[in-house]
């Protein structure tokens, strides 16, 4: 066996794919060839490196929101850029429209209460004089977002109960609200102390939670 022959068979030998005479030929060559023994040593070292690599690696960021947005049709999406007060007005209109839709479909005795996150009293504190960088505002936002997330999850569980056209309208309305939220946030980055913007932010969060609460109640009552 030449060194070139060994090079061709070394992989199979190390992987245990050679038996009998074929394996003995490789072993015999290695016993008498220092250069090939060195090659074998390097290859074993490489395979040890590879075997020691963890098969699981953590991504640097949470990838789930992007997945949820794509498969859930944008339930959790944060939309447009640039502050457009019109979007806020639109959000208010669709919220009112949605509330009307929900109220006309529901008889009060059919409403079943869904477990809701606690109210967010800190939000009122922040309205009085908060700013985008204000920790109270940040806390209020977190609480509203947690409430909205819990409601979205509840809605996902019960979405099969809602007629498709109603679901589409709800989703579309939520997207408008999310766009409005994104716009207010962006405006707050430029003008964090603006009390009007702060009030808008909290009001929009509250609207989103209200809408979700009503829709979840509707979906569980149908």
């Amino acid at each position, binding site marked *: 066996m030449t060194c070139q022959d060994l090079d061709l068979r070394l992989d199979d030998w190390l992987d245990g794919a050679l038996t009998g005479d074929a394996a003995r030929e490789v072993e015999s060559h290695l016993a008498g060839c220092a250069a090939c023994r060195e090659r074998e040593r390097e290859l074993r070292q490489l395979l040890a*490196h590879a*075997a020691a*690599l*963890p*098969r699981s690696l953590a991504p640097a960021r949470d990838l789930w929101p*992007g*997945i*949820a947005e794509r*498969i859930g049709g944008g339930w959790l999406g944060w939309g447009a850029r640039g502050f457009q007060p019109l979007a806020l007005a639109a959000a208010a209109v669709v919220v009112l429209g949605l509330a009307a839709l929900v109220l006309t479909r529901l008889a009060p005795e059919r409403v079943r209460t869904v477990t809701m996150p606690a109210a967010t009293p800190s939000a009122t504190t922040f309205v009085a004089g908060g700013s985008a960088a204000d920790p109270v505002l940040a806390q209020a936002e977190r609480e509203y977002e947690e409430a909205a997330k819990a409601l979205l*999850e509840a809605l996902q569980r019960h979405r099969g109960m809602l007629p498709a056209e109603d679901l589409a309208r709800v989703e579309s309305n939520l997207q408008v609200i999310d766009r409005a939220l994104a716009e207010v946030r962006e405006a707050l980055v430029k003008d964090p102390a603006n009390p009007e913007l702060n009030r808008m932010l909290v009001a929009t969060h509250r609207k989103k939670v209200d809408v979700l609460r009503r829709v979840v109640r509707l979906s569980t009552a149908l």
Partner: protein
Amino acid sequence: MEGLVGVVIGDTRIAMREDEDRRATELRLVRQAQAGDLVAFERLYRENERKVFGLCFRLSSDPALAEELTQEVFVRAWRKLSSFRGESAFSSWLYPLTVNVALSERRSRRRRDARIIATEDPASLERAPRSPAPEAGFDLEKAMATLPPGARAVFVLHDVEGRTHEEIAQLLGLAPGTSKAQLHRARRLLREALAS
């Protein structure tokens, strides 16, 4: 000795029961997800994201692309979930999907914009997730990123993931002999990098 054997058998039974419980929980989550439960699907994602990301990262050598690929795998998994019958583990069902997404996406991107995937992009390697190096002075992740894509894929699947040439041939649509040849090439290039 009988006592020891009894302990071993008992431990094995406990491990088997735990495995059965895990499979049962997983199957329940899959059934819920198949019925449209996004929360159940998120739990399946959380259980499997690291394995899927690890494989995507090693097949693409680009952490940013690996993140996109991981998301694409789970989006496609959601869409194809009705075809999962629970005969294997969910992770086993995801595996060929992951390989397919990672390699086909890389190929299509290369065709689309002639982009060289990260192997010559030092900035992306700087951001790469690091594995604990068993020996200082040799970064296998970095060396793998310099391999030609075909050789890298076979090396990752065979020597890191522990797949056989027959399995690799099926996953990549190659002849087993081609898989062996690619592995030989990859090992030679990496051995040279290790020796230098």
